[in-house]
């Protein structure tokens, strides 16, 4: 599929020029980040857990083939049916075929970033199947015909008044109502009916266990559990990187996940599924590659496969917080998204590794120690190598390279700059060609350079 080129600054423009909204969004996410800090600090062994989690993931990714085979064998022995999908289209095909086999018209689906990545909803709807996203945030964005702007908090960009309008239109709530409690209650009533009518339940997977052939789904709302304990057919869709080797490893990851994601000690429901519910029920597990095995081949970016989709890197990212998730034009936004998206298509997502100040906060909060800001920097190097840098950046890099190579040139340019800036009319620096001065003033030019100062005060 050919994707349009995403220019992050342009995509973020609309969000950023609305000062009030950008600031509100920033604060909402910082609130979540602060809750995460509080929870992390209650666990003295936090750093130890992060290292262990990182080691487990590194080990698993290195031996992924072996663990997938083990998982398949054990899950099959428990009565589950395993399907393998090389890419998104195949994943959608597999799900569609299972649904058609059962003559399904209505499905209920809990949050799954994988099915978002594969565009499952569109595929099913195009085939006449009614898809209901049951996570409240996902239902809100589904009714608004939007996409999630965050992997854990899908509707974080939407204000309660806007949710009120959407619910007034679709669920018949009172006009102008914006009380979260009232709106949540309305959604509860609306979705109860959908749960009872759902013919097949689809969920994502948080962790799949090679040793036991089972998997774990974590939710706060209880929507995944309600969605799969009524119908007879459960389809669980997972990326192949969701695997962990041992049942006991779940301890490490359940301790890290919710604390990192929302600052809770654990999610309300941590459900362990091992095989279908009873002999009359079916459990299908779809294992999806969609670029993951290729990513495993890259030494530089392989660690990105450790991601447990907690969203902590987004909550802390100064760029994400101010520009909003939609500016990344990808299922996974924020720092981890800016690493993953270009691995899919470097040309389309070439601007994302630059949506980063290299502050390193993402790497500090990542529960599985993905060196995110190092990877973002590495991507920039890679993009230069691929000749994907924009003309303006290429030109200025060439200029800088010359400047730093020839000391004479550097000294002269400094002089010209200091004198020039003093006399230059404003339009010469503040015009539409210079993006740096859109919201910035230039500093007062100093009277002398450091070199001149040093000559005068130290050498003499």
């Amino acid at each position, binding site marked *: 599929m050919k994707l349009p080129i995403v220019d992050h600054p342009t995509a973020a423009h609309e969000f950023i020029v609305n000062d009030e909204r950008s600031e509100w969004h920033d604060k*909402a996410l910082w609130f979540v980040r602060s809750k995460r800090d509080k929870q992390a600090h209650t*666990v*003295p*062994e936090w750093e130890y857990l992060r290292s262990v989690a990182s*080691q*487990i993931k*590194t*080990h698993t990714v290195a*031996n992924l083939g072996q663990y997938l085979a083990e998982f398949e064998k054990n899950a099959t022995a*428990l009565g589950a049916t395993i*399907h*393998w*999908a090389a890419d998104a289209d*195949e994943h959608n095909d*597999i799900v569609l*075929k299972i649904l058609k*086999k059962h003559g399904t018209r209505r499905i209920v689906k809990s949050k799954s970033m994988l099915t978002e990545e594969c565009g499952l909803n569109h595929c099913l709807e195009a085939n006449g199947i009614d898809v209901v996203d*049951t*996570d*409240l*945030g996902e239902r*809100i964005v589904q009714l608004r015909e939007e996409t999630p702007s965050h992997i854990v908090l899908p509707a*974080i960009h939407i204000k*309660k008044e806007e*949710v009120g309008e959407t619910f007034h239109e679709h669920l018949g709530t009172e006009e102008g109502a914006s009380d*979260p*409690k009232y*709106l*949540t209650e309305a959604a*509860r009533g609306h*979705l*109860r009916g959908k*749960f*009872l009518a759902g013919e097949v339940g689809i969920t994502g997977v948080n962790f799949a266990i090679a040793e*036991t052939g089972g998997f774990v789904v974590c939710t*706060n*709302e*209880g*929507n995944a559990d*309600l969605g799969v*304990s*009524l119908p007879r057919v459960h389809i669980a869709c997972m990326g192949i990187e969701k695997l962990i080797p041992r*049942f*006991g490893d779940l*301890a490490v990851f359940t*301790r890290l996940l919710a604390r990192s994601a929302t600052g809770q*000690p*654990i999610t*309300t*429901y*941590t*459900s362990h599924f*091992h*095989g279908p519910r*009873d002999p009359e029920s079916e459990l299908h597990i779809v294992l999806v*590659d969609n670029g993951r*095995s*290729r990513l495993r*081949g890259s030494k530089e970016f*392989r660690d990105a496969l450790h991601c447990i989709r907690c969203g902590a890197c987004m909550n802390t990212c100064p760029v994400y917080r101010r520009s909003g998730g939609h500016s990344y034009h990808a299922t996974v936004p924020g720092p981890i998204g800016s690493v993953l998206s270009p691995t899919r298509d470097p040309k389309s997502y070439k601007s994302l590794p630059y949506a980063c100040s290299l502050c390193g906060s993402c790497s500090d909060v990542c529960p599985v120690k993905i060196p995110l800001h190092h990877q973002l920097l590495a991507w920039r190097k890679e993009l230069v190598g691929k000749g994907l840098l924009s003309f303006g950046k290429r030109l200025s890099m060439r200029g800088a390279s010359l400047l730093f190579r020839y000391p004479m040139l550097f000294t002269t340019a400094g002089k010209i700059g200091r004198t020039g800036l003093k006399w230059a009319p404003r339009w010469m620096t503040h015009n539409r060609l210079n993006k740096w001065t859109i919201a910035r003033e230039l500093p007062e030019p100093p009277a002398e350079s450091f070199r001149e100062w040093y000559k005068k005060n130290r050498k003499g």
Partner: protein
Amino acid sequence: MLSNGSEETLVAATTTSRRAIMDRLESRLVDGPELPEIDLKELTTFDDPLEHFCQMVQAVGGQPHRLDRPEDATAILEAIPVFSEATRVASLVPEIAKGNVDVSMIDDPHALATLDWTIVQGDFAVAENGAIWIDGDSLPQRVMLFIAQYLAIVVSGSQVVSNMHEAYERVGKPPHPFGIFVAGPSKTADIEQSLVLGAHGCRALQVFITP
């Protein structure tokens, strides 16, 4: 129904993809560390796990009640209006409360749609996060945990572990087909980060701690 032909095509396609994925994974050798073992010395344990558990149940939105005798739960429940007014109650712990819906007689889980209360027995509790482990085998219909408007879980105060490592050790053999940690009532903060209890599952959670 799908004809056998297309079912075979589906199986053939997924077998081809399996081979392709495995080939890509196996043709590229990647060095990795050994699987780490957890160093128990690193882990926090609590002097009074039960006390910490009670605090955490509250922190995750549940209501803990420490009982001297299981029968004491009856008075506590009767004092909760949504319990005394409830019409359909499923109880798997008759010494705490008598129910009037026998879930073991129900074949279709949809029949539980109007359930007001579910009262179940938990196997053990986790101090660090207020979670309670429930083995799916104890539930005649697993949906009863999620579909009831209100939930009460009974757990023994002598069965509290400190952390999740001890918890998984305690679960031992993985549950077949279902097992769950429940920590607090169902909740959401999807509308402007405002915490609302009672998303899709129970609206409130009572935790009865028996001796």
